[in-house]
Each structure stands twice: as structure tokens, then as C-alpha cells.
């Protein structure tokens, strides 16, 4: 096994921890567990990412393979926070059922709620996700709701009881990066609950630009797992999320369309004439 890579953490004095529904998380980067070449690579990538929250999917046991395909052999639930998703659900009813199945696994009552509307784009169903959020929140679930970069849906999700709203940067698995920074900023400004951008981040600069909008965190899977070297990319994403967060907190300089010299304009040496 190759050595693990663990880049340094952001000093606590520079940023407060992420808090969702009263729970503190040690990283603003959340990662998925799909699409890795093998479990060893996944484990090293998660380690390098510094993520605490890792997502998992709920699927039928393949009776020919038994528990073998299950991911719990490879994740330590004492060190990682397992966040089950409802990926693959196309109706609120299916998503609610999947969330209930996930909760029965006994780890926690959180769910990354997805209700997908379209197979080609995997774009979410705003009506279905609001409906499922309301149902699950009433059952005591902590719902983190995957949604479009649409302010009104985000507001409806908060109203329905979501503990965090997860607008997309761009479609799932697309790697197109943050397509609408304005929408994401608007959602962040208007919501009281944390905003975690989920899906579409393709490389470190995408993660950094996303965090610079002021959102509370980023969730990604393919951007790391489909990189040529997922472990290095996980470390890059971790650094990028920290960099973007700190840059947001620091407050960038104003953009100017003219140059302003950085060096003094007085005290110049006498020009040399030839």
C-alpha cells in the first residue's frame, strides 16, 4: 500500500468549524465513495481529502456476491460520518423509502436527499425534493437536500425543514465547474441554513472558486475519483477548499480596469540618457 498523504489543516484561528443542525464537522469538504478503482485507492483518497463526511449509496445486495460489494468493510464509521444518499430515486416516494432503509442501518438519521427528474442531465426534481424533505423532516431526519441552483427551490427546501441545502455547481459527474456563481451567492445570502455546493466540481480551481462565493462547503465524488491520480487530486481539493474559504473570509480586493502600481511612484532614479 502506498503511503497516505495528509496535508496540514487550516489553523483554527482563521476559520470556524462547519456546523449543520448543531453538529460540528472538521472539514468543509465532503466526498463520495463511488467510481474508485478499488477500496485501497478510495481509502487513501478520503484520507488525503481530510473529509469527515463521506456519502454512500443504498442498493440491493447482489446475492451472488453477498456482502462483498458492500462498502462498510472499507469505511471506519468511528472516524467518518456516513451520509447515505438517495441517488437513483426518481420519485419522492422512492427517495423516502431509500432514506428509511438507510436509517435502519443504524449509523445516523441524516440523509443526502436526491430526487432526480431527468436521466440525461440527472437534474433534480424541485417538486419531488421539497415533498420528500417535508416528509422526512417530519420523521426526524436531518435532510441535506440536493437541488438546482435556483433560489426559490432553495427557500422552499429550507421552509420544508432541510438542515442544509445543496445546490449544484453543474450536473452530476460533468466536471463543468461552477456555472452560475451569481445564483449560488444569492442562495447563500438568502438562506439561514448552511449551503453546501454538490456536484460538478471538476478540478481544484472549481472548488476554490465555489468556496470563494461564501458557501459553507462543497461535496464532490467524480472530480476526485475520476482524476488520473485520485489521491493527489483529493489533496488538491482539500487545499483548494481551504484556500477558497480563507479567500472569502479575507475579502478580495476590488476589481479595477486600470493598472495601479504596487511600487512607489516617487524617488525614482534619474533616467539614463544615451
Amino acid at each position, binding site marked *: 500500500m502506498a503511503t497516505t498523504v495528509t496535508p496540514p489543516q487550516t489553523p483554527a484561528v482563521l476559520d470556524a468549524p462547519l456546523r449543520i443542525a448543531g453538529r460540528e464537522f472538521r472539514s468543509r469538504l465532503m466526498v*463520495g*465513495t*463511488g*467510481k*474508485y478503482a478499488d477500496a485501497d485507492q*478510495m481509502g487513501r483518497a478520503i484520507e488525503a481529502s481530510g473529509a469527515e463526511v463521506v*456519502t*454512500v*449509496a*443504498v*442498493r*440491493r*445486495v447482489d*446475492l451472488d456476491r*453477498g*456482502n462483498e*460489494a*458492500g*462498502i*462498510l*468493510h472499507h469505511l471506519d464509521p468511528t472516524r467518518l460520518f*456516513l451520509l*447515505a*444518499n438517495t*441517488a437513483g430515486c426518481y420519485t419522492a416516494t422512492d427517495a423516502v423509502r431509500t432514506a*428509511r*432503509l*438507510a*436509517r*435502519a*442501518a*443504524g449509523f445516523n438519521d441524516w440523509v443526502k436527499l436526491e430526487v432526480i427528474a431527468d436521466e440525461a442531465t440527472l437534474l433534480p426534481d424541485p417538486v419531488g425534493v421539497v415533498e420528500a424533505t417535508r416528509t422526512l423532516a417530519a420523521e426526524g431526519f436531518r435532510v441535506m437536500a440536493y437541488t438546482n441552483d435556483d433560489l426559490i427551490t432553495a427557500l422552499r427546501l429550507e421552509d420544508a425543514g432541510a438542515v442544509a441545502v445543496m445546490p449544484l455547481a453543474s450536473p*452530476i*459527474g460533468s466536471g463543468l465547474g461552477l456555472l452560475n456563481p451569481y445564483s449560488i451567492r444569492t442562495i447563500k445570502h438568502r438562506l439561514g441554513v448552511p449551503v453546501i455546493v454538490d*456536484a460538478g466540481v471538476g478540478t481544484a480551481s472549481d472548488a476554490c472558486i465555489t468556496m470563494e462565493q461564501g458557501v459553507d462547503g462543497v*461535496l*464532490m*465524488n*467524480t472530480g476526485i475519483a475520476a482524476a488520473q491520480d485520485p489521491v493527489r487530486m483529493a489533496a488538491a481539493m482539500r487545499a483548494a477548499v481551504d484556500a477558497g474559504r480563507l479567500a472569502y473570509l479575507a475579502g478580495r480586493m476590488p476589481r479595477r480596469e486600470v493598472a495601479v502600481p504596487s511600487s512607489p511612484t516617487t524617488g525614482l532614479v534619474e533616467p539614463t540618457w544615451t
Partner: protein
Amino acid sequence: MMPVDAGEGTLSITVNGAPRTTPAGASLDDLLRTLGLDPRLIVVEHNGAILRDRASFAARPVADGDVLELVHFVGGG
């Protein structure tokens, strides 16, 4: 779905959408072990009811015609 000819002392059940047989008198725990599954790593939906207490599996009988969904966590985003 193909009908299963359940013989004497055998139950016809549906597991994850496919027909199977199991000996009469088997508990849910027996069935899972026969399938080679570790009950701690899976979640069971039995005739539409999600079971949240794994300790109850040994005392839970499986009956003819029962429908079971056995799920677990896999990699996902």
C-alpha cells in the same frame, strides 16, 4: 417472474425481486445466514416493513409468499 415449485416443507419467497425457496420454519436470521450474508451489514425490508432491530431477526419467521428486500451501502456520491 418464473413460478417456483415449492416442494414439501419448502416456502416460496421473493428476495430482491427474484423467486427463491427456503425451508419451512426458517427464521429471518436463518435465511440470511443461508444466503451467506452478515446481518450486521444489511438492512431488511420484510413485506414492506423496514426492520430496525436486528436482534429480532432470529425470532422473526419467514412465511410462504413473503417478499424481502435486502440492501446495503455501496460506493456513491
